[in-house]
């Protein structure tokens, strides 16, 4: 028990939050990668290359932020694939090219997302089902709706949506603005509102939050609702970016979403979330794929790179986990030591 230095109260508050380890790691890796790209694969960081790949980074960032909220609460959302795919087919099939129908379609997509999120939240937060089981089930149900709506056939996207989500302003793809706006919103709510602060506490230690009288289950359930809203926005973005999106667009996003959350330093056991770092990690992961492609790694090996990035990410933070583990182990010991 080391006694900390005697620093009296008046000096308090001057120190800022030390830069999180995840932010430093991810930002440094990204800078290194950009430099590597400049040397070996300039096309990946050229304007054309970025304009092509950034929209996909933005989509990964948005689903990553959604997944982050669930992972923060110690959960895991496999219904991401179904949620994104459902949103894609809702905004392409329902209007079927008619701009006037776009707004109602978007509203329906959001309503469905909220319903799916509430169902997940009920199963996990209230019925205490295992998050994986509940969201596997929900994923299948969402895909059921996808097929009921679309029959599995793709349909061309609405011009208005292509303009809104796929267009550019000042040379920057709109999807990037969307991702940044969502990032700002998530950061503001989580860091600056009472509800967001409670959300972080509950993720960081649900037992302590419960002992202090916070409504743990309600917040855990709400994480799934907010996550589905993210997936919905991501689906709408994909529908705008891709000319003829398939009914399975969400499948390819599940693993990257988890990878960026883990790379950003959020523990899969729950805890603090890092929205800004998550978005940088999405950019990093996307650029890494571009870099690998440019230097001649076959497309097929892309996922191996993702896997290695994931292992690397977890490996970096496992040191931190180990410290937490020792504390837990100690308290387990105390249980047997209860003299």
């Amino acid at each position, binding site marked *: 028990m080391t006694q*900390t230095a005697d620093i009296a109260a008046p000096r308090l508050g001057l120190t800022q939050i030390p830069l999180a380890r995840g932010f430093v790691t991810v930002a440094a890796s990204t800078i290194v990668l950009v430099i590597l790209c400049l040397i070996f694969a300039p096309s990946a960081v050229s304007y054309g290359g970025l304009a092509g790949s950034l929209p996909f980074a933005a989509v990964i960032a948005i689903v990553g932020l959604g997944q982050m909220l669930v992972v923060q609460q110690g959960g895991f959302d496999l219904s991401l694939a179904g949620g994104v795919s459902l949103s894609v087919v809702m905004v392409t099939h329902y209007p079927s090219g008619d701009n006037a129908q776009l707004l109602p379609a978007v509203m329906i997509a959001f309503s469905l997302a909220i319903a799916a999120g509430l169902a997940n939240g009920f199963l996990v937060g209230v019925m205490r089902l295992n998050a994986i089981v509940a969201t596997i089930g929900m994923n299948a149900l969402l895909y059921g709706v*996808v097929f009921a709506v679309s029959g599995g056939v793709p349909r061309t996207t609405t011009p208005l949506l292509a303009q809104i989500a796929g267009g550019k302003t000042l040379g920057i793809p709109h999807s990037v603005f969307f991702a940044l706006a969502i990032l700002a919103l998530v950061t503001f709510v989580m860091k600056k509102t009472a509800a967001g602060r409670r959300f972080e506490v509950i993720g960081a230690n649900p037992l302590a939050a419960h*002992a*202090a009288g916070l409504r743990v289950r309600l917040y855990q359930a709400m994480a799934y609702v907010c996550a589905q809203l993210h997936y919905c926005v991501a689906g709408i973005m994909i529908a705008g970016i891709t000319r003829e999106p398939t009914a399975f667009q969400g499948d390819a996003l599940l693993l990257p979403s988890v990878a960026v959350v883990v790379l950003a330093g959020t523990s899969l056991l729950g805890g603090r979330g890092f929205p800004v770092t998550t978005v940088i990690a999405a950019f990093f992961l996307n650029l890494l794929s571009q870099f690998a492609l440019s230097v001649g790694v076959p497309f097929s090996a892309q996922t191996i790179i993702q896997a290695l990035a994931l292992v690397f990410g977890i490996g970096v933070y496992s040191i931190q986990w180990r410290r937490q583990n020792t504390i837990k182990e100690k*308290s387990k010991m105390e249980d*047997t030591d209860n*003299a």
Partner: protein
Amino acid sequence: MTVIDTITASETGHNPVTAPALRLTGVTKYFASVAALVDVSVDIYPGEVHAILGENGAGKSTLMNIISGVLQPSEGKLEVAGDPVSPMTPSRSTELGISIAYQHPAVLNDLTVLENLRVALPDEVFAGGDSLKIARDMLDAVGLHVPLNARAADLPVPQRHLLEIAKALAVQPRILIMDEPTAALDQDATDMLFARIRALAAQGTAVIYITHRMAELRQIADRVTVLRDGRMRGTSLANDVTDQALLDMIVGRSLVSAFPPKAVGAAATINFAVRGLTGKNFSDVSFDVGRGRIIGIAGVDGNGQAELMRALAGLLPYTGQVLLNGDALKADTLSRTAAYMPADRHEEGLAADLTVRENATFTALDRFASGGVMNRSRELADVRDIFGQLAVKTPGLDAKVLSLSGGNQQKIVMSRALLSRPGYIIADQPTQGVDVGARFEIYRILREVSDAGTPVIVNSSDAAELEGLCDTVVVMSRGRVAQVLEGDAITEERIVGAAVQAETHAPNMGEPTVQVQKSRGGWRHLVQSDNATAIPLAAVIVLLGLYVFGQNANYLSAFNISNILLLATALGFIAMGQTIALLMGGIDLSVGPLAGFLVVVGSFFINDGQGASTIALGFVLMFACAAVVGAVNGSLMRYANFTPIAATLAMYIGLQGLSFVLRDGPGGYINFTVMDWLTWKLGPIPVAFIVLIVFGITAEILLRRSRGGWQLRAVGSDEGAARRLGVRVNRVFILGYVAVSLLTACGAVMLMAQIGVGDPSQGITYTLSSITAVVLGGTSLRGGRGTFIGTILGAVLLTEVLNAVSFLGLSQAYQYFFQGALIVVAALIYATARSRAEAPT
């Protein structure tokens, strides 16, 4: 402060020629930097009952854990029968004939009574004859009359203790350690236990008997050693020492008189009262708190104080009344009215990830927010203010909370309690792990809060602290109020005396005492067993089959039946693997891509025109790759701290990539002869499916009847208890994941026969469908409970449902609907059934 000199063996009347059965020399143990034991040297002789006496936290249990090998001493050595042992491990201590009954029984909830005995005891114990009869005799010997196939989770607390004792007494131990064995026992069981202990000692067993009850010591012990604050206070013959002398050794720590002055004057108005409070482990507790008076709750740990505190904090259900300022509080508002300072700061008091400021304010956030948006300056001002009042020493408001000393961490918890403006404060062990200087600050704060009119209730196992701090002390024993001390009567000696001299036995704590419980019939047992799901699943499979047959006669054609069963065979093998992962409390997301990858590997060797040896090599390679993948998964989890999800997810992505690296599209047609063999049928039934059934039944038997099966379920049920029982946890986990992958390889062989070509995009869906099948089968995701039979039935049902959709003329959407509905509904039914089965005990 009297210190009795250590008495040497010759002085105790023992024949010095006899070598001690156990000798501890200079044993010291630190947790982090806190000393739990300092320089303990003691000899235990064959044939004696040696009591270890001491207060809570004196180091008794730490000492026992060192002897049993659960903990390693920081310094000092152990000798058993004259031979030094280093390092001691749980399995080594078993080999040396050290037998132990833990205070918290190392009983595995998900295993049956018989399995608990089998996994804990060496096979030789059961070698000579009918194992059921041997187990029955063991239980009869301790008076435990429960069915051998009853699940341990269903046993009430006293019976769990008897089971623990039965395990310890099953072998003729050289050294027997009993840690507070009578805490939960009634008089008859205690008498039986003492008779057994005396008999064993007469046969030459050295018995170490840990207790804090002097009455018991008088009944059973030959010699007694007293520990206090981790140090030896002395050893003496039990007959040579008076109760008073022992009490002096146990207590007597003089604290510098820096306690804040107590309340003075006549009885103040009552602002908090408890009336007839009854709950888990405590009953009929009543007391009043006058304004400005601090109430202390005392007693030996585990006598209901902790549960009482939790109930008062609104965290445990209770009956009775809690009155604040004369108004009865509603149970569901308690947790928001009370401010609870938990005993386990790290577990329940602090969020380690968050900063000092965030930890201090998280119950008071609404006060600092306007319209939901936080006002940072208001928050900072209040935090600075409270930190100033409490003299919190921190390097900064945004420092990590764990960088603070224990005392300052506790002050953060107190800051939060005060910032939330509570109705009353429940402080459970407020000075545990707190340095001396900060302790007195905490006393001062509690006194100030109490003076300001907020009721304060303190639970502490440190009697000296209660003496100095409290105006009233309620001493609890076995869940009831043993004595209430007031004013000058509050002395450390009276508190400890009231707690350790209370002779109440046979607690009535809402739990049945040891009793015969033979009423259970075979049917009830079956319903509660892991395989209970088999019958309803089989019924659903048959009914669904008949229904679809009614709609479309082709459904039950020989062709379709064999088609369903072939598909179910591949899924069944993979789901069996997944069952093992879930039994260990983990999960394996990589089974799907692994199956696909193995098919791709096989497609390079098992082709038409290849020689038999090449084809054989292909099969060998498939299984070898699987074994490597399983070993990597298990090692990542056990040695690199990956969660099961993280490790197998990374493996999932990696294997998918590898498949595409090996083949960028379908290619490598599988040898027709091999495929014919694999899909060979007897009538409509594929032989492979029969093999699956044989595998399933064999695995089920191994799971219930072999040491490996018990160990597998033991680590999934309770890793800590399994380790204490000597199970090599890491090895079991890694071998378990290898088994998962090998069963997946069996599934991959069947998958290969179905698709007939190496296709890198195939197989991935098996991850989700295998989990679905296992959940349908009724295996618990919490680990420890599962069934291979149920899993296979789950695989058949899932395949049948997906197949039925096309026969019913439904669109593809229904395949998804049914699959999703099946898993959610099954999970809900099983979860509800289990919680209902667990609720009334």
